[in-house]
């Protein structure tokens, strides 16, 4: 993730080092006090509500515990919960479905977002500002509301998608009710909702590429396609990596549409990790097993990040 930030800002205050005068010394002390005061609200909240729970997730994953009994009643079971994750068919399906969902989401979203960003970057194309706003608008609508619309769009017979398909003489794949098309239906839903956000990030990346590079390429006789392949894509790499990571982070935690539309079904075909975690903890009362699932999700995420950063280092 280091690629996204410029090197940390030059500070104006040196808290360390010998102050030149005594007056300067009290100023430094005052600044130090201010720094502590300004930072502590954020840091305390992050410590209590993010850092501590993260450590607890791992700790709980090594125990048997129903969430609704005191935490002192936890029984140590070692890695049993992780064994349950890799041997239980429901949990394995959740793992597999999550990987497929994330991979498909990234594979569809990123090329589409790059093409749209390039389109919106074509100079003097009227209405591109409006299109960018329309694309982004889907991102701000509550997922529950989008779920409601899409459940209607996907509806058999009276939904507009199936109506169009049958008018064209095509048999409906059954969308959410068919085990072989339910997950991809949720991927389409995800791509539709998130695409605009990534397009905006990519357009911003495009504007960072200096115009002179393109001019030099044009002099060398490079056409638009050659310019895109040899200049735009390589120089957009940092933004592309960021967009890829955000796609993975956002889609690996998909919960709302699964909970609302399919409850993991039909036949476990849309059971993803976050839904499985919530159900295992809150409905089945198996907090230890749910935590093992949660920690597995985190490991999966770290693996992706590690592969990406290794790939980056090799290329630079």
């Amino acid at each position, binding site marked *: 993730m280091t690629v996204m930030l410029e090197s940390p800002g030059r500070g104006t205050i040196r808290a360390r080092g010998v102050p030149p005068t005594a007056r300067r010394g009290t100023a430094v002390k005052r600044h130090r006090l201010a720094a502590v005061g300004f930072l502590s609200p954020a840091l305390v909240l992050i410590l209590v509500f*993010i850092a501590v729970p993260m450590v607890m997730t791992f700790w709980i994953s090594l125990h048997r515990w129903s969430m609704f009994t005191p935490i002192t009643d936890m029984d140590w079971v070692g890695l049993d919960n992780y064994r349950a994750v890799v041997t239980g068919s429901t949990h394995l399906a959740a793992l597999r479905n999550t990987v497929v969902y994330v991979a498909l989401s990234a594979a569809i979203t990123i090329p589409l977002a790059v093409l749209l960003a390039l389109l919106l970057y074509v100079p003097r194309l009227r209405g591109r500002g409006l299109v960018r706003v329309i694309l982004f608008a889907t991102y701000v609508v509550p997922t529950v509301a989008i779920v409601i619309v899409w459940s209607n769009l996907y509806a058999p017979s009276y939904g507009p998608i199936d109506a169009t398909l049958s008018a064209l003489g095509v048999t409906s794949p059954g969308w959410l009710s068919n085990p072989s098309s339910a997950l991809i239906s949720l991927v389409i839903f995800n791509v539709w909702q998130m695409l605009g956000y990534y397009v905006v990030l990519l357009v911003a990346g495009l504007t960072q590429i200096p115009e002179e590079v393109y001019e030099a390429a044009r002099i060398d006789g490079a056409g638009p396609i050659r310019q895109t392949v040899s200049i735009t894509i390589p120089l957009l790499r940092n933004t592309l990596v960021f967009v890829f990571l955000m796609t993975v982070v956002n889609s690996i935690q998909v919960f709302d549409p699964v909970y609302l539309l399919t409850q993991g079904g039909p036949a476990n075909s849309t059971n993803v990790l976050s839904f499985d975690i919530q159900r295992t903890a809150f409905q089945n009362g198996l907090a230890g097993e749910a935590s093992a699932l949660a920690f597995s999700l985190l490991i999966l995420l770290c693996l992706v990040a590690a592969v990406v950063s290794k790939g980056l280092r090799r290329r630079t």
Partner: protein
Amino acid sequence: MSTVTTTGRDLQRPTRRGRRRMTPGRLALYVVLVLAAAIPLFPLYWLVIASLKGPQEFGRIPPTWFPMDPSFEAFSRVFEVVPFGQSFLNSALITGVCSVSVLITSVLAGYVFAKYQFRGRDALFWAVIGTMFLPPIVTLVPLYHLVSSMGLSDTYAGVMLPWLVNAFGIFLMRQFIADVPDELIDAARIDGAGELRILTRIVLPLLRPAVVTLLVFTVVYYWNNFLWPLSILQSEDKYPIVLTLSRLLSYSTSVQYQNVVMAGALIASLPTLAVFLLAQRVFVQGIARTGVK
């Protein structure tokens, strides 16, 4: 070398200044542009027209693509079927408190990370930013336990407490504050201004785009947040709008209520859409800044 560049520029100029004619290639680009707008718009269009249809029209096969007899009846019925008004206020309260808190904590922390030097600053900053990539589902179980053991299960405080800070907000503010010239801050210090005064009187006025961006982001994020309220709340009178909407969704099995469900979804989407559209110019640029550099 320089002569070549000049020639290159001169060659470029006529096309730059002159009006472009509508070539087939450009026409194709416009067709794609219209499609790029139509695909995100269609489901939103469907949401609007479906909420205006009557129950009879709703069940028609094939569906009508424009309401035959548009009626706003569903919009008043949604307030009778579920406690929609109360939920709306609940969402406004939760979103408001969390957004203001995130704004304050982010500006304070962002200022320190951008303008102060101390040992371990960068490590601390990256540790904080790392939490930005942590999916909330990972800590759901311990967080539920933590908040319940504070006695805050099924309370407004319990819904809000874990979300009073946001790493993305700190990141955004640090990015913007780093661009505030050091000389401005130094000058104020020489004049004897305190740190909080410098922050509120000198730095904050320069952060308007960042503040707008962060507020739009938090309003969207907390208005739409589903998983946590679902886990911590039991009483329907405390439900935020998205939870009430999910309860409303179960009514869609009955043909009598389908337009009501749609109307509910539309009303629940209006605040975030309105906030976004009002601030879109600043917001899109602000969000864009988080992805580059």
